[in-house]
């Protein structure tokens, strides 16, 4: 009876893991990088140095917006946190004006409110958005797809736990150079060491988009979603412009008032509606790094007099739990020590998914009628594995390289950086399809290693912030970035060497079968 359950769970684990494993690998990889999205953005904008003060930045942003979009319906100012240096502004065009592209109603500013335009890039923010919005496909579809993948992940984790017999004995076991056994160990070690993280991150990931995936809990109690949101965030009062111009209140004192009300925590976000009109409102939100909960405190002010306006948000255990779950997922509150732990756990998750995908082929190869001529399904999985496990990271390295190598004056430069990622990914896939898999593995892993190794080199050649210079200057962000690239390069090089050696040894190495390996 117990063996039967374990077998059916093994079956479930294998197939849920495989079916969306490639997408999950890309989600894990970009999600992991997103814990350092501000650092990646700083690396991708090497011209910008130093840190920015939120109050000065807000004043600069207001000056920029008063010049650029004085008639806008609202201004959104996303202020720099303690890890970033730039301000992101968006504005909503005035009624009657046509809505342009994103680039026409948004800008990246420095502390003094000047537009940052030396190197057009979407930086780490792109990797963060790809994690749940993907790219080239409509955002709505992407989010449903990502949700399905996350649910598969949750089921794969739970069935994996039930399948795994000696979860604690295997905790400390990693046997290298043992073919299938080693892949299984790698899969188990990365899965078990960070198991609480994997469970937490998958569940909270679903929670971040819960209203989209499971709207029926809200539909049961509210006529529509707006009614629910009004109940949670306080009624949204969209007042139309009166047409009577009035000067906007200075935002700096309001930000200090808000900060003081939050025990000195930074302001993260300023929203100004109807700027320049007598109906103007200023809405100030606490920086997300200030606490774990993602739903931060907010204070509204009258935009002319600066008097606090009523703004009530619902409080309760469930809402607080949801807010903390989303906050735990995004990790914006984390200081550097914890941030590295998040990053390493995410890396472990990426390796877990990747080794699981590889394990699928390694286990089945021994059972094939003719291992030298596998059937179509097996070949497809193998090709997709190469394209994903080696090709997607190679694409990320290409994204960083494109940031340094594309001409600064190039039109749509930020888009071309992103295209470089996907072109590299596609190229590795094509390469995997045309080459025999046994050769494509070491070649593709070698390419990923070479591209990651090239990042610090190209950085040193194209900017004045190469590794030696950063070391001398004590610029730990650039030092760490270059070192992480080198560590990734070493990891992929090691993988490439092992894959090449395996090819030389022939299929003998994978013939080994152990009872535990069969059960898992």
């Amino acid at each position, binding site marked *: 009876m117990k*063996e*039967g*359950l374990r*077998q*059916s*769970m093994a*079956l*479930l684990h*294998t*197939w849920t893991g495989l079916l969306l494993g490639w997408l999950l690998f890309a989600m894990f990889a970009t999600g992991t990088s997103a814990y350092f999205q501000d650092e990646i953005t700083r690396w991708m904008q090497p011209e910008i140095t130093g840190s920015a003060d939120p109050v000065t930045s807000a004043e600069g942003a207001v000056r920029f917006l008063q010049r650029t979009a004085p008639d806008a319906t609202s201004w959104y100012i996303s202020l720099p946190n303690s890890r970033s240096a730039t301000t992101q502004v968006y504005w909503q065009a005035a009624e009657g004006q046509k809505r342009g592209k994103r680039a026409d109603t948004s800008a990246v500013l420095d502390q003094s409110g000047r537009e940052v335009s030396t190197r057009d890039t979407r930086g780490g923010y792109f990797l963060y958005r790809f994690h749940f919005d993907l790219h080239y496909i409509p955002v709505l579809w992407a989010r449903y797809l990502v949700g399905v993948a996350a*649910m598969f992940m*949750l*089921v794969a984790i*739970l*069935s994996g736990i*039930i399948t795994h017999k000696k979860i604690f004995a295997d905790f400390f076991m990693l046997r290298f150079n043992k073919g299938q056994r080693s892949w299984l160990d790698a899969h188990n070690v990365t899965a078990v060491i960070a198991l609480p993280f994997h469970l937490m991150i998958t*569940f909270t990931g*679903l*929670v971040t988009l*819960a*209203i989209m*995936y*499971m709207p*029926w*809990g*809200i*539909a*049961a*109690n*509210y006529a529509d979603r707006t009614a*629910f949101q009004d*109940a*949670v965030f306080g009624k949204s009062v969209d007042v139309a412009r009166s047409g009577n111009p009035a000067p906007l209140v200075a935002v700096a004192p309001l930000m200090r008032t808000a900060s003081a009300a939050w025990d000195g925590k930074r302001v993260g976000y300023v929203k100004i509606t109807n700027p320049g009109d007598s109906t103007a409102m200023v809405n100030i939100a606490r920086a997300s790094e200030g606490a774990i909960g993602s739903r931060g405190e907010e204070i509204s002010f009258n935009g002319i007099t600066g008097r606090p306006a009523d703004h009530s948000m*619902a409080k*309760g*255990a*469930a*809402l607080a*739990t*949801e807010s903390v*779950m989303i906050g735990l997922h995004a990790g914006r509150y984390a200081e550097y020590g914890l941030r590295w732990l998040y990053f390493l756990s995410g890396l472990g998750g990426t390796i877990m998914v990747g080794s699981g995908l590889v394990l699928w082929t390694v286990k*089945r190869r021994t*059972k094939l009628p003719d291992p030298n001529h596998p*059937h*179509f*399904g*097996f070949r*497809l*999985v193998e090709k997709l594995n190469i394209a994903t496990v080696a090709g997607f990271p190679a694409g990320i390295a290409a994204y960083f390289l494109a940031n340094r190598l594309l001409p600064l004056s190039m039109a749509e430069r930020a888009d071309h950086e992103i295209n470089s990622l996907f072109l590299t990914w596609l190229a590795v896939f094509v390469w995997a399809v045309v080459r025999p898999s046994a050769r494509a593995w070491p070649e593709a892993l070698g390419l990923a290693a070479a591209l990651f190794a090239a990042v610090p080199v190209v950085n040193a050649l194209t900017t004045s912030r190469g590794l030696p210079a950063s070391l001398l200057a004590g610029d730990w962000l650039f030092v760490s970035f270059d070192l992480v690239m080198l560590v990734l390069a070493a990891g992929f090089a090691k993988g490439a060497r092992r894959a090449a050696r395996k090819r030389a040894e022939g299929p003998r190495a994978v013939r080994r079968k152990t009872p535990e390996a069969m059960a898992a």
Partner: protein
Amino acid sequence: MAKSAANARTTGPAGRRIGRWNVASRIVAAVPANYLVTSLATACLARLLAHGLAVNPAEASVTATLLSFAIFATIALFAFGLRSVSRLWLWLAVSGGVLGAALWLSLGMGGRL
């Protein structure tokens, strides 16, 4: 892929061969039927908390929504863990029926239940 799928399901619980239909019916139970039952359970719980136990409706809805993913994952595991497919479908049909009737009654009575 189809062929490898067939390879993978050679033997199942108690060493019996698992048929194609057995797996197909479990997949239908684990995904669409599961989503239906989970949605009903989530909506029922949200109604029960808000109207039966007088919890704030926003809190009730969010509690139910947060739990829904755990419910879905549990049913998905049962869909493959239960030995008998007919018992699985019986369970789903009964719980779906009871939850559906409860929700219909609650909505029909307009907030008094």
